């Protein structure tokens, strides 16, 4: 039982618990904050997996961008006369059953598959490597992503306008 394991379990617990709260909380704002903690947990998991750049990017974009956007959405789409902002859930039973079985299935698949080659590849600095990849092999998706972001920007702006 190394530190690594303990830290992992910690982060995993945080993530899962937060995710559970996200899903079951009645108050949207509680959900949103739980999502925050979930994202943090995930970032921690990234770090444990040696993907430092990705972890940071996750924090910046996800937490700093997307989550804020969501909170904006929450604020804009509710008549917030009170801070409670209650929401409900429905068809819980069929969903539980279905999703449960599905999850179980996934786990079964996961456990029964012969994953190929569990070699651990560790690397000190990933940023350089990622930059290298981006500019050489993955330059097209990189550029396209830029265009996608542009389009998303334009689209969102035009949709949300008037």
């Amino acid at each position, binding site marked *: 039982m190394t530190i690594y394991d303990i830290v992992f379990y910690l982060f995993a617990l945080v993530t899962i618990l937060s995710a559970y709260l996200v899903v079951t909380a009645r108050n949207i704002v509680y959900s949103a904050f739980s999502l925050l903690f979930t994202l943090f947990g995930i970032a921690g998991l990234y770090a444990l997996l040696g993907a430092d750049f990705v972890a940071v990017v996750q924090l910046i974009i996800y937490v700093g961008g997307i989550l804020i956007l969501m909170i904006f959405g929450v604020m804009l789409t509710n008549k917030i006369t009170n801070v409670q902002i209650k929401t409900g859930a*429905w*068809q819980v039973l069929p*969903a539980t059953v*279905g*999703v449960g079985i599905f999850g179980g*299935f996934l786990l*079964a*698949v996961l456990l029964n598959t012969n994953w190929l080659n569990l070699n651990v590849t560790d690397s000190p600095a990933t940023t350089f490597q990622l930059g290298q990849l981006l500019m050489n092999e993955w330059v097209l998706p990189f550029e396209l992503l830029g265009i996608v972001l542009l389009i998303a920007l334009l689209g969102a702006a035009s949709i949300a306008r008037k």
Partner: protein
Amino acid sequence: MSQEALINLSVIILFLPLLGFVLTLFAGMKFKWAYLIENAIIVIGFLLSVVLLYNKLSYYVETNITAEFSWINFGVIPFFGEIVVKLGIMLDNVAVIMIFTVFLISMVVHLFSIDYMKGDKRYNRYFAYLGIFTFSMSGIVFTHNVLMMYIFWELVGLSSYLLIGFWFEKKSASDAAKKAFIVNRIGDLGMFAGILILFTTYRTFSFQGIFDAVAAGHLPFNSEFWLTVTGLLLFCGAIGKSAQFPLHVWLPDAMEGPTPVSALIHAATMVAAGVYFVVRIFPILSGDALLVIAIIGAISAFIPATIALTQNDIKRVLAYSTVSQLGYMIMALGVGAYVFAFFHLITHAFFKACLFLGSGSVIHSMHHEQDIQNMGGLRKKMPITYITFLVASLALSGIPFTSGFLSKDGILAGTLAFTSLTGNWFFPLIGFSVALLTAFYMFRLIILTFHGNPKNKEKYDHAHESPFLMIMPLVLLSGLSIFLWYTPNPFNADSGWVLSKWVKAPAISVPESARYSFMVEEPKDESIINQVEEVTFSNEYTHAMHSVHVPTMILSALLAGLGILFAFMFYQWKKIDPDKLAAKVKPLYNLSYNKWYFDEFYNTVFVGGVLAFSNFLRWFDNTIIDGIVNGSASVTRGISRLSRKFDDGVVDGLVNSTAYFSGFVGLLFRKFQTGKVQTYIVLVIFSLLILLFLFKSF
């Protein structure tokens, strides 16, 4: 003239009156004088018949001349053989004598009618009808086969119908015509049945052919019984046509027709056709059949004679007299007196026609009065009519020196001979009593009509002698009623040419076992040959006939005289009061006066029976048949109602429930379309799960 020429002549004689009928009928619609065509034709026909008679009896007296042609040839029919229907003409002595009689009386009636029917609105048509009648009668006389006879038999019936119902506006006349035709048809049924039996047995219709076949031993259905039956069936036709018992009821009613018609048809010729027919088929009548025929003839002689005693209509008396005399002829044939039967046929034709025409003369001058109770004393006003009537009555009564005496005497002799040969005394008894009655009623008629004082002064004053065309026939016919024309000996017909040379009894074809015992042939006995020229049937018979001759003569003359005496006592000298006598024997009187209630009986039994039956059938049809039909209609309706309920309930229910079920399922499945994406996602997950579990590999 050659035989062929005689045949041609007879064909011309046959078809001349038909030509007269057609011409007069069509010309009569336009021209007033069309009747002269008919009269001219009849006179020509008469002259030709005289020629025929002369030639036949002079040159061919022993032979029968026949000619035939094939009318319908059916060829060979399976199971039956060949069927060929031949028609033809047979001229034997009987035929030529008969045709002479027919044409003579027809001519005389034509001439009489010219004055009698003057002013009638269908004058020309009357003569046309007389023409078709003469044609039909000639056909009966000339025919050589039963089928042709049947054809002309029916034609004669038709002509009689047309002529009886000539004044059809009178209901009684049209009824009488119908009655005559229908009653005749009843007799014709039997005749036709007999003809059919003959044809199926012998495959030929001709008389000679049938006689030869029977003589050869070929009997219908191979039994003598059926030969008798056939003979009697054929005789049925004669019963109808000659108004014998029980089909005599039409003749008195037939007096509704004009009097010349009664003279021609119902006295002299048509009713004689029945007797003529029996004369023709005589060879195939067995002894039993002849006995039945004789009995019917005897009854038919007796009953009308009793009725005639009380009748008051001139024509009725004469009509019943005709029936009675025909009965005589039939009875004569039945007991075997063939020759005398035919002889009486001829003599009766003449004097009965004379009597009828005489009565026509009286009726005409009394302005269509027919009831003798309203007449009287006419002999002073109508002397010629009176004398001719008297002569004819004497002939009818059988007073010596008349032709009637000879023929009636012969018949009575025949009955006595029959008695002596078979011991059956019925026929002479009837024969002689009828002779007495005949004399009585005829002279009653004469006394009441011509003697005494007139009952109706007015009519008497207007009465006058009839014109020449009406008188002349009377004279002619009464002249023919004298013995002179038939035999030189007024008391013995045998020595005359008629019986000894011209008319002979035919050879009998019936097997010997079925004949009268006296008709069985034997070799001629020498002793008889000297006395008679011809042996009739057998020695036995000839001998018997010869021996009864004189007693008959005396007895019949006596009875006739007695009858006349009684008549005078009752009506002329008023020694006995007929009315008181009638009151004393009221039931008998009523029986006689009401014609023995035959008409009433037939009406109730046959007509009433048929009507009742038809009523029953109508009830049956209405109630039961219609009931069944309606019932089945109701059943159908009920079934259809049931079917509709079934259709509405079950079938529609089925359809509706299917639709409802479909709708229900649809409603159920509609719930899937919630419009909510999350529902769809859940469904997708579940489907995915199912697929995964189906295709999992672990």
